């Protein structure tokens, strides 16, 4: 009876009580920040460059006079303020190939002398991009298909359910691998293929929720008030089906990132020079016995990311269930 808070606000309150979920969310936010700011964190051009009483911002603007200049060189005089990782993800430092973490290369370098820290930071972009865009695609598809089946039932549902069963029968990973082999591997095709194949779980959830919700009295009540089908679906059924979709989507992001990593590991994913954690891991195979950082760092990043998303997903799940109107509050 007290206070005024929305359904989502109370879900959020429950969520915040869960320490692991909160930690997971921080990790996810941190990864977002890194991915979003990647060019500001890893870059071979300085934020500020002062020479001859003039101030330049090479990282933010292009200056014709500095074209092809390496600001890090001793031969470029003046004051320079570099990002924490003063390397781009694709440049070769031929002086230090497969060198362990040091002050110069915080996470070491790979077999081509590329800075691992820079590659990890840009790799975060790929994993977030793939995770979110592919999952967004399949959530949308899943909602539409599941809603059609769940709201109309009958033969429409029959048809859709059979179709879902057929799609589920394909081993997803190999299906994706086959399609990628046909259309050619790239970041876009990875996203599209995962987006087009991953919707079955969401569709099933939405279908089930619709079956449950459309029998609920507030849907009947709305119908009794003369509301149209479209109004009922959008206003009453969907908002109530959204919570479990959100949970599943969060877990979905985790597994999509894992799929992307695996695909890139196998060479079917993101193509060089775009760095992906799976790709970095794959390159490290030849040096595994001595270049521990090349295996451990991307492996750990993947592990942490997946775990973080899963913790967030579980947190949402727990937050939604006790508060649910389905139980007695």
């Amino acid at each position, binding site marked *: 009876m007290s206070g005024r808070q929305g359904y989502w606000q109370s879900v959020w309150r429950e969520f915040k009580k869960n320490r692991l979920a909160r930690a997971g969310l921080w990790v996810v936010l941190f990864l977002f920040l890194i991915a979003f700011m990647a060019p500001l964190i890893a870059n071979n051009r300085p934020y500020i460059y002062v020479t001859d009483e003039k101030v330049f911002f090479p990282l933010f603007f292009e200056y014709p006079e500095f074209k092809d200049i390496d600001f890090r060189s001793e031969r470029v005089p003046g004051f320079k303020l570099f990002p924490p990782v003063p390397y781009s993800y694709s440049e070769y430092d031929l002086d230090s190939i497969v060198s362990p973490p040091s002050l110069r290369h915080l996470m070491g370098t790979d077999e081509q002398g590329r800075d691992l820290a820079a590659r990890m930071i840009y790799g975060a972009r790929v994993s977030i991009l793939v995770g979110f865009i592919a999952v967004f695609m399949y959530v949308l598809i899943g909602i539409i298909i599941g809603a059609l089946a769940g709201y109309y039932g009958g033969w429409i549902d029959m048809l859709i359910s059979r179709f879902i069963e057929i799609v589920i029968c394909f081993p997803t990973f190999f299906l994706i691998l086959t399609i990628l082999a046909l259309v050619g591997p790239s970041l876009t095709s990875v996203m599209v293929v995962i987006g087009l194949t991953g919707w079955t779980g969401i569709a099933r959830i939405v279908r089930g929720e619709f079956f449950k919700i459309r029998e609920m009295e507030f849907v009947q009540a709305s119908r009794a008030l*003369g509301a149209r089908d479209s109004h009922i679906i959008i206003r009453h059924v969907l908002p109530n089906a959204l919570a479990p979709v959100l949970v599943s989507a969060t877990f979905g992001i985790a597994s999509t990132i894992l799929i992307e990593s695996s695909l890139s590991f196998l060479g079917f994913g993101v193509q060089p020079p775009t760095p992906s954690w799976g790709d970095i891991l794959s390159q490290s195979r030849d040096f595994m016995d001595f270049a521990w950082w090349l295996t451990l760092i991307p492996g750990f990043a993947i592990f942490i990311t997946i775990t973080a998303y899963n913790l967030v997903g579980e947190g949402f799940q727990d937050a939604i269930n006790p508060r649910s109107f389905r139980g007695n509050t």
Partner: protein
Amino acid sequence: MSGNHTPSTQAAVPPERGKAESPILSVRNLRIEFESTGATVFAVRGVSFDLRKGKTLGMVGESGCGKSVTAYSVLRLIQPPGKITGGEINYRGADILRMNPEDVRAIRGREIAMIFQEPMISLNPVFTIGFQISEAVMLRHGKDKKESRGIAVEMLTRVGIPDAEKRYRSYPHELSGGMRQRVMIAIALAASPSILIADEPTTALDVTIQAQILDLLMNIQRERDMSMLLITHDLGIVANTADDIAIMYAGEIVESGTVSQIFNAPMHPYTIGLFEAIPRIGESARRLRTIPGMVPSLTSEPQGCVFYPRCFRRADECRENPIPLVEKNSHLVRCVRA
């Protein structure tokens, strides 16, 4: 079968009422079936009743008798696997069962509104109650947001919600059951319907709250000259609120008449059983008398009286033929031994 009564399976209306003002809603021979894994449940079999203008008809029967599905069918709200398989529902000269869906939709809420048993789940948990009332107002009157907000607050005040301006922004889970039912009433009345169907509106509430809600319904009904179909399993509730009563058992009307006729001279053994089940002051709930046995779910057309297995007055003749609803002592009853 005693021969001095004319069998009437058609109209379940006492003659003296049929002659008076024509009813606002008149249901004839309604049949509802549920198809479930091979078997067909005959949930409602030939139900007829009249709702008089500005009056309340109390429909009483135990859980599972078919009251809700009867009520839903008035607005054609029966969902598959349920199906209306026969009958007429006449409202203002038109048969609702034969209207096109758009016309039925226009009647819903505007002409005939409905409130449900569970106020806990009759409101959408993700929206404020104000939003839901305004939505109902907008849906029906096409008014703009600001105007409908004004009407919504007015309605909330009318149904006795204190501090309506503030409550407007509350979510359903922040309100008690009684308050939620008031909100449901406000929503149902938003479009000034001429008929309100209330399906067990107080069953989920505490006794004291029950009385308040019934009072509210009665006051609004009088104020607006609205007709009401009040469904309940508790005969005690209709004593003070209803004008007419229809007793329902296993998909049939077994007795119907005015409140005084039913209360002064109940004839059907089932009605008598319901009277004995009314909780009396000083009697603990544990000692409450109930009718032994259960309401059957009929998967075939019954041979004789459906109440036979539970009846204290049963005899062999009850099992022979379908029992018609006939007039005895000036009201209708479906019992050969009454």
